[in-house]
């Protein structure tokens, strides 16, 4: 169904993909990819050549085969510290459209091999003050420009990349949990025990995929750099049926939710975009559009499993609703 939509709004989506391909995959296709290619002798040349732009601005011709091969290329811990050149990733979440459908949570869990109870992205039920109605509030990692978690890390296991993404290297993390306590947004989680899924080594570990996990280390939302390198949206953004989550590049001043592509600056300025807890000075890269002209009544968000509703039992509004027997 989404594919149909994509063809309808083809230009937008294609534009994003095209741009992603051109400046995302292609830029990295420079040094690291070419080095990769030479080492992999099995690779057959197709004969078709494609021009790509290297990080230092040179046009080079590479085999078309290698471009397709790129997504599977393994990004090592070393490479993942650099980031995707020329990019500055940013997310905009439109609170007016969120109805706690939880597709973002589930697709994220699937992509990062998380358990049912582990969420990189949580949906909060927030009430700004007594007069205001509560609203659903998706909360990923904010990938701050002044990340307190990175400052306090004693080994450099968590780091800020040039493209704005904050990642965790599970091979470096000693599990001191200082980053978890220093994050004011509670964005980080911990691998409390060993799980059989960690033994699955089909895919070699990369901080860009956060898979497989490692016992005794920290995990969090990673903005899906593996998808970004392919010019695709993070799983949460692409799976949202309401198009709540816009994702894009601040340098290009463009964000998309997969259906429409808009100017980031216009979106923020026209619709009063803000960052949560701005006064903390962490400078998040996740922006919110206020929940005005809401598309769904709040109650639609309670159309979920009983145990999910239980997770909001401490919210005064939910207690109220329960008393009235509405939930």
């Amino acid at each position: 169904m989404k594919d149909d939509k994509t063809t309808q709004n083809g230009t937008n989506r294609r534009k994003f993909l095209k741009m992603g391909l051109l400046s995302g995959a292609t830029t990295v296709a420079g040094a690291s990819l070419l080095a990769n290619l030479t080492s992999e002798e099995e690779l057959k040349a197709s004969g078709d050549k494609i021009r790509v732009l290297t990080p230092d601005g040179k046009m080079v011709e590479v085999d078309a085969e290698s471009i397709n091969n790129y997504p599977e290329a393994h990004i090592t811990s070393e490479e993942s510290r650099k980031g995707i050149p020329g990019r500055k990733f940013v997310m905009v979440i439109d609170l007016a459209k969120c109805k706690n459908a939880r597709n973002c949570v589930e697709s994220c869990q699937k992509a990062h091999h998380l358990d049912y109870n582990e969420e990189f992205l949580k949906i909060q039920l927030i009430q700004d003050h007594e007069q205001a109605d509560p609203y659903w509030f998706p909360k990923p990692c904010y990938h701050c420009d002044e990340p307190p978690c990175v400052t306090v890390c004693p080994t450099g296991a968590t780091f800020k990349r040039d493209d704005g993404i904050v990642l965790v290297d599970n091979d470096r993390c000693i599990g001191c949990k200082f980053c978890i306590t220093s994050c004011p947004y509670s964005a980080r989680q911990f691998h409390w025990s060993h799980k059989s899924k960690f033994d699955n080594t089909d895919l070699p570990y990369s901080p860009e995929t956060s898979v497989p996990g490692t016992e005794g280390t920290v995990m969090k939302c990673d903005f899906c750099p593996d998808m970004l390198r392919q010019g695709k949206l993070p799983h949460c953004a692409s799976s949202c049926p309401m198009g709540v989550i816009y994702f894009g590049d601040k340098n290009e001043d463009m964000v998309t939710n997969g259906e429409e592509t808009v100017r980031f600056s216009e979106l923020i300025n026209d619709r009063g975009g803000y960052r949560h807890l701005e006064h903390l000075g962490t400078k998040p890269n996740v922006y919110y559009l206020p929940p005005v002209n809401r598309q769904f009544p709040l109650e639609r968000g309670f159309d979920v499993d009983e145990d999910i509703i239980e997770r909001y039992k401490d919210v005064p509004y939910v207690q109220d609703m329960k008393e009235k027997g509405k939930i």
Partner: protein
Amino acid sequence: MNIALRKKELVKEFSPLLLKPSKWAKIWIGILVGLILWGLIAFVIQVVKGHEVTGMRDNVVWGIYIINFIFFVCLSYSGAFISGVLHFFKTPWKNSVSRIVEIITVVSLIIGPIFILLCIGRLDRLHYLFLYPRIQSPITWDIIAIITDLIGCFIYLYLTFIPDFAILRDNSEGLPKWRKKLYTFLAIGYRDTSTQRKRLHKITRIMSAMIIALAIVAYTVLAWIFSLTLQPGWNSTIFAPYFIVAGLYSGIGVIIIAMYLIRKYFKLEHYIRKVHFIGAGVILLIISLLFGYFTFSEYFSRWFSHKIHDANLLDTLFNRYFWEFVFANYIGVLVPIVILFFKKFRTIKSITFAAIVAVLGLWLNRYLIVVPTLETPYIPIQDTRPEFVHYSATWIEWALSFAGVAAFVLFFMLLMRLVPIIPMSGIIDYEREGKVRPSELTQQQQQQ
């Protein structure tokens, strides 16, 4: 006065402490070893099964391990601080308590960091701290501070031990051979000549000043682990001095408790007298007033200005942790103040009771600094499985905590077997200065 003879007398007097473990001491050592073994079992389980066996979860990621860590490390720093002050200012009655303080300092500085290791998810990667150090992390500062402090305290403790090692070496008739060898080795050729004595006094004095400074630095860095974060209950400008005062509070408390137990079980009433308890009690009174003042300032300013996140934290403290809050911050402060303020209440037993209340209250105060803050983050805890919301320590954590306390007591007892708990050299120095009165000779002589 014949100094050599006096040394012999003193060794004779204190040798029962060094040699024969009484029946009760053996039972105690047995219990302590049992507790430590229980803790070791818990530790093995935690290593094998992972941190899942603790009560720590995604929101409250630090539990009673870090509370014990702060507690013991603060104890150590305050010991260093007090000991340094006693030495540096040549406090008149310091001799009977100075060794107790020094041993507390070193033993708790060994136990404390073990607890922070228990918080670490990947102990096998501990060397990464040195392989990939990042100097802007407060944890790195803390590691540097603790290691420096540990080395400084060891040197200091050793310096204060040297004259006693020499006395024991020279008067070791009746001691086993290995002990004689050990004392000879540890005394490093100290012959108590006046040049050596002067030099040792000078070095000890310099070290005592240095460990005061070290203790303040290390304390501060420890407090910064919390106060440099953005969390509502931690991000406080007064945390560093608050921790220093809190550390002194627990430090004096533990010293009084140790004084009481040692006096009682080793029958040292002649050396550890009421005047020591009253002196320590008055200091505890001053510190408890200061501690109460800091605690009040900390919570009062949060309550009065009631920023939303501060208000949420106080809401947690006053509801979910009501009794803990009352015990830690009312009873734990006011009871010692009342007992110690009135002269007629100042008996050895009541002062010790006040110290126990103070120490327990302070431990709970640390708990209230760590856990409720983590349970009340900026963004309320929602969309989380219910068992991840609140913290309660599991038996694994308690077993390891008690093992830590047991190890503290056991190390203390073992060190007491190595050198007399009352520094003999201090007594000699005191008598050498001619300040002694006949009534203040050894306990044995008095009894004769």
